[in-house]
Every structure is written in C-alpha cells, then in structure tokens.
C-alpha cells in the first residue's frame, strides 16, 4: 500500500477531530471556532465591483484554493454566490464571464433585477474587500469536446457565459471557430462589450455580431443568419443562453434548417416555461397547516406569499436547499419538465408547479 505523507496527515486529522468531538459532544470543535471568529471557511474576496454598464454589475473575485480547482472549470459554467442580506443567507447562480487563472480571479456578470433582493443588495452594498461565499464552478453548459465550429447565441445577460467561452477559445491554441450573435437591449446596456471587441481584431477564428434590440428585433431565419455571415450548416454545436423566447426561436431555426448540430441551452428564468396555473388547485403546507390557492409562480413563491416560512437557496433548482417531501399530488419540474406523481417523492419546490392538489411536508 502506498501511504504518502498527505494521506497519513488526513487520517490523523480525522482521528483527532473525532476524539476532540467526543469531549465537546454534541457540539463539534468547529462550532466553538465559528463564534470566536477562528473558523476557516473558504471565502472569496471581492477585488472590484464594476457598475459602468446600465442595470448590471461585473464583480471580480479572488477564489480560494480550498474549494476551487481550475482543472474542474469549464468556460460557460456558473457559480453559486451566497451573501447575507438582512440577516438571511441568500444564494443565487451567476455565470462566469472572464477568468484570470494566474491571479485566481474570476469575474461574474450580473443583471440587476430591481425586484430581486440579492442583485439589488449586490448593486447597492457590495464593495471591494468584502468576503463572500462562492461554490466551485458548476453546470453542463460548455463547448462539447470535438466541436470544430460553434455558434453562440446570447440574449441580454446571457452573454456572460459566452464571454468566458470566447476568452478561453481565443487564448488557447485550438483551431475551433467561434461565432457569437448577441442581442443586447442597447449600447449602454451591453455587457462585456469592450471585452469581446478586443478579440474580433485579434483572431479570424472569432466572428461577432451585435444587435441592439432597441433598433428592432430581427427574425431568426436561415436567410438572416446568412446575411450576417453566420451560415448555419457549418456549425456542429449551437449554444444559446438568454430568455426562453430566444431559446425557442433558435431551436425552431435549427429544426427548420434540419441541422445536425448539438444544441445546448442555459436557462436563467424558468418561469417562462410555466404552464398557465390552474387556480382551482390547493397547495397544503402540512408543517404550518396552511392551505394556499394555486396561482402563477412556483410552489416556493406561493408558500412565501402566504407567509409560510420555507427554506430556499438558489431558487433555480440547483442547490436543493428547498427540497421537501411531497406527500401527495402531481407536480411538474419546470427545469427538466419531469412529472412527479408518486406519493412521498422529494421535490424542489423552487422549480415546481402544481398540476393537481399538492400536500407538502416541508
């Protein structure tokens, strides 16, 4: 057996922790360290907050080696960012828009939602030097290996993962061709504009077409794509990130043109896929003995609006903080389209919509 120093140290560390925790039972030694400010939780440091683009933020973070492994990072992925807002730890997912591996630095592109507690907090309160919690990079939205030519279609803040993909491709020695079609609301609200511009001159492997939708939204047809020089048949992967309507039109386009390309998409807003809510249905939150009439929104939102205190995190089906037992009823997962109709299944209420009366044991 091969026992190196690191393994021995890990085993000793675990044993020591186990022994100490018998003395502090039912607490752990970490519980004490936390309240004396000695806890060693991996945190990311905010390097800068750029508010120059209208309604958006670009946050540069220095990630901690302890929970960040560059080998596991794929351009196009997102992270979960956790910040304390008014005493509540709130978690949201944001795409990485740029990286600087040498400095352990990542940048997150964030569209400010004026009704959203977290993005508003970030835009008003976050400053350089703050410490925030950041997960490792996650998600399946990255360029398929082996794709020779890729079309990226971005709408609004959907450009953030695309930006990281373009950066990685242009800075690597691959011969992959990347085209980016970006629908931005206006010149002032264009995220990553200057950053992307720099690559257009640098390399002929990158084609970039920027459309301001304030000047009118062009219809996505094969003719239109040809007219901007993005001929569809050349691509073996198409990636789309943005509003559901954009995703749908790209999928329709691919189908109409009978393309043989991989189609990948990233959703920022799941509610676009929601079905019209049947208001005859009743949602029962059993722990609080509260009944709520069904309406537009997820089970989580319906509960919260009725004053039920519910655990939640990312609110987009990722972190499972909101998972709870569905005792009876049928729900649809808006993210995957999956139908859960068996009793006592665990569901994520932040992305679920009721199709029948539902009882939840939250």
């Amino acid at each position: 057996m091969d026992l190196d120093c690191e393994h021995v140290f890990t085993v000793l560390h675990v044993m020591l922790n186990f022994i100490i925790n018998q003395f502090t039972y039912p607490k752990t030694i970490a519980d004490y360290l936390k309240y004396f400010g000695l806890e060693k939780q991996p945190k990311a440091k905010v390097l800068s907050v750029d508010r120059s683009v209208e309604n958006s933020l670009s946050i540069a973070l220095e990630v901690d080696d302890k929970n960040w492994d560059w080998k596991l990072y794929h351009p196009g992925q997102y992270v979960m960012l956790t910040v304390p807002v008014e005493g509540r730890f709130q978690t949201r997912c944001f795409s990485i828009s740029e990286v600087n591996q040498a400095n352990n630095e990542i940048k997150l592109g964030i569209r400010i939602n004026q009704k959203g507690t977290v993005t508003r907090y970030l835009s008003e309160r976050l400053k350089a030097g703050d410490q925030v919690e950041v997960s490792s990079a996650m998600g399946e939205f990255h360029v398929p290996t082996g794709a020779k030519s890729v079309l990226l279609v971005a709408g609004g803040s959907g450009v953030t993962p695309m930006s990281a993909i373009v950066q990685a491709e242009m800075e690597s020695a691959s011969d992959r061709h990347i085209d980016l079609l970006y629908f931005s609301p206006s010149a002032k609200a264009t995220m990553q504009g200057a950053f992307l511009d720099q690559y257009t001159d640098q390399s002929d492997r990158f084609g970039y077409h920027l459309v301001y939708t304030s000047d009118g939204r062009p219809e996505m047809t094969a003719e239109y794509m040809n007219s901007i020089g993005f001929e569809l048949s050349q691509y073996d992967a198409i990636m789309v990130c943005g509003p559901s309507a954009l995703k749908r039109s790209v999928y329709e386009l691919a189908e109409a043109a009978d393309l043989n390309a991989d189609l990948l998409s990233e959703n920022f807003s799941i509610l676009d896929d929601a079905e019209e809510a049947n208001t005859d249905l009743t949602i029962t939150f059993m722990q609080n003995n509260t009944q709520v009439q069904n309406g537009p929104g997820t089970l989580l939102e319906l509960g919260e609006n009725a004053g039920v205190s519910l655990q939640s995190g990312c609110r987009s089906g990722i972190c499972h903080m909101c998972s709870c037992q569905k005792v009876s009823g049928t729900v649809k997962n808006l993210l995957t389209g999956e139908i859960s109709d068996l009793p006592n299944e665990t569901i994520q209420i932040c992305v679920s919509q009721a199709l029948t009366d539902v009882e939840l044991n939250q």
Partner: protein
Amino acid sequence: MSKYPDYLNDEQIEAMGAEIQAIRDEVMSDLGERDVRYMKRVIFVQQVFEILGRLGIFAGILYPVIWVFAVISLGLSKILENMEVGHNIMHSQFDWTNDPKLKGKDYEWDNVCPASSWRQTHNYMHHTYTNIEGLDKDLGYDGMFRVCDEQEWKPEFRYQMLIGVFIMLSFQNAVALHELGVDDIRDGKRTHKEAWHIFKPIGWKMFRQIMKEFVLIPAIAVGGAFLFAPELMWQAYWMTALGALLANIIRNVWAFLVIFCGHFTEGAHTFPQGTEINETKAGWYYRQMLGSCNIEGGALMNVMTGNLSHQIEHHLFPDMPANRYKEVAPKIQAIAKKYGVPYDTGTFGNQLKSVYRRLKHYSKPPEEVAA
C-alpha cells in the same frame, strides 16, 4: 355553546385570532440582521461561560474558591445553551436565516434528550395539543404529576411533592424519557418492543453525555494530575465529575421551575380530549393563551429563561425568534384585556407559590378536597 371556557363565543374567538395573527405577520416580515446578531451574541457569551466553567473546574482542584464560581459558570452556560439557544433554534425560529448552524432540524443540544425526540414530544405534541389531557404529555409529565381534574387520582399522587423534588433534580432525564410513555406502557397501549425502539436513540445520547461529563473530561484532569501531582489524582476525578454533576443539576432545577411556572400555575387552563377536533387557528390561539402563563422580570429573567418568561407569547408564536416576545407581549396583553380573556402573569415568586398550591391541591383525592 363553545367547547372552550366561556370567556368568549366562537365569533369573538375568531376576531381575537385575527388580531393575534396580524401581530405575528408584522413581526415575521420585520425579521433581519439584529435578530441574527442577538442570537450569535448569546451563543458567544454561552461559550465563554462554558469554557471558563470547564477550565475553572480544573483550576478549582487546586483553588476551591475558583471551583465554586466555575461550577456556577458552567451551570449558567448550560441554562443558556438549553433555553435561549437550543430550545429556540430547535423551534426553527432562525430557519429563515439559511444559516446551517442555526437550522432547527439539524441542531443538537447539550442535554440528554435527543433533539429528534424533543421535536416530536415538544414541538409537535406539546405545542399542538397544549394542555389537552391525554394528548399533551407535558401535562403532568406522563402521569408523574396530577395537575387537573381530568386526570384520575391515584394513591401515588399523594407523594407528588416529594417525587417532584427528585424529578426537578434530574429533570433532563425526565424530559428525555417521557417520549417512552411510561403510563402507556403500564396501561398496555405501547408494547415493550415499541418502547425499546424509542429508547435506543435516547439511551445512546444519555450514554454519550455521561461519557463526556463523567469519564472523558475528568480524564483530562486525572491525566494532568498523574503527570504533575499524582497524589491529587482521585481529588481531580471527583472534583471535575462533581462539578459537572452540579452544573447539570443547576440547569435541571432552573428549567423545571421555569417550565412549571409556564403551564401549571392555578390560572393555567387545561382542556379535555376532543377540544382539538375541528379546531380553527383562532381556537388554537385562544387555547394557547389560556394554557400558558408568564413570569414578570427584566432583561436578565428573559435571557435566562430563554424568553419563556413570555410563555404565552412563545405558545402563540413558537417559531418567532424569542428575542421578539418582549415587544409583542404588551400588545397581546392589551388584546387579552380588550376581550376579557385572562392573561396570567406574575413575579417568579408568586407564580412559584401558585404552582406549589396547585400541585398540593391535586395531590389529594377529589373527595378529600370537596370535604
């Protein structure tokens, strides 16, 4: 005819319930940073008391004066941990913070009663069926005490004052074991096999707590004595073990007194089985108000009782952060006055005397009382 004591008719109960609900909604939407800061500060202070207590007990082997203060410090830390921290977190009062360390379902307190068992008997049974005879196991603690007319008199209740002293000293064990349902086992409603299944996690936690208090931590002192002063080894053992025992007893006695003052004064109402059937939320509020009683006192009384000095408010709003009870109490009292519903409050001494009189009263058979 209402099934409740007739201070109010059903319509008035609903109206009062709506006013209470409005108070709750107002506070719950106002929760924020200051509540988290308060709880974290309490945890910090509790840990300081605990560490000073443990270290002081070691030092006390050589300097007995320190030992006395250290035992008190450890006792206070256990009171804080059980009552202001554990009890409140385990009621999910801080779940809204999304802080895993403040999450009700995951918190385990420094007490022989396992948190999972506590959530069943206390959070669920006691807080749902408060003071309903036969359903709320806290009403008379599983047949250990007779506290209302609905309970049948048995000869052993003659000694309930004496038994009470014993239970007070070992209160944490009584709390841990009362999920077993001693009277259910005796009456054959629960088999020994079922009881054993319930006992296993309780017994395991008791074992680990005993190991910590009377074997592992004293072993540190004994080990130290072995190295530096072998003649003090025995003294090191008994002083650390006795210190831990006394600290546990301090907590047991205080918790017992606070809880009995919260539900068993002469003014606290009890309810017959069936009250819970088809009960509305407002009816539940009404029952909580009638079945609980407060202790008057200042900020120190509030923090040392885990805000159970506001037992009425706690029973109305078990998942509201307890540091808010003092600000809602005057509003609840005003509502009680407006509707003419009793709001039982008094100083610690007076409430304690009232509990004493009640236990004494019910220790006698009904015919003796009538005569």
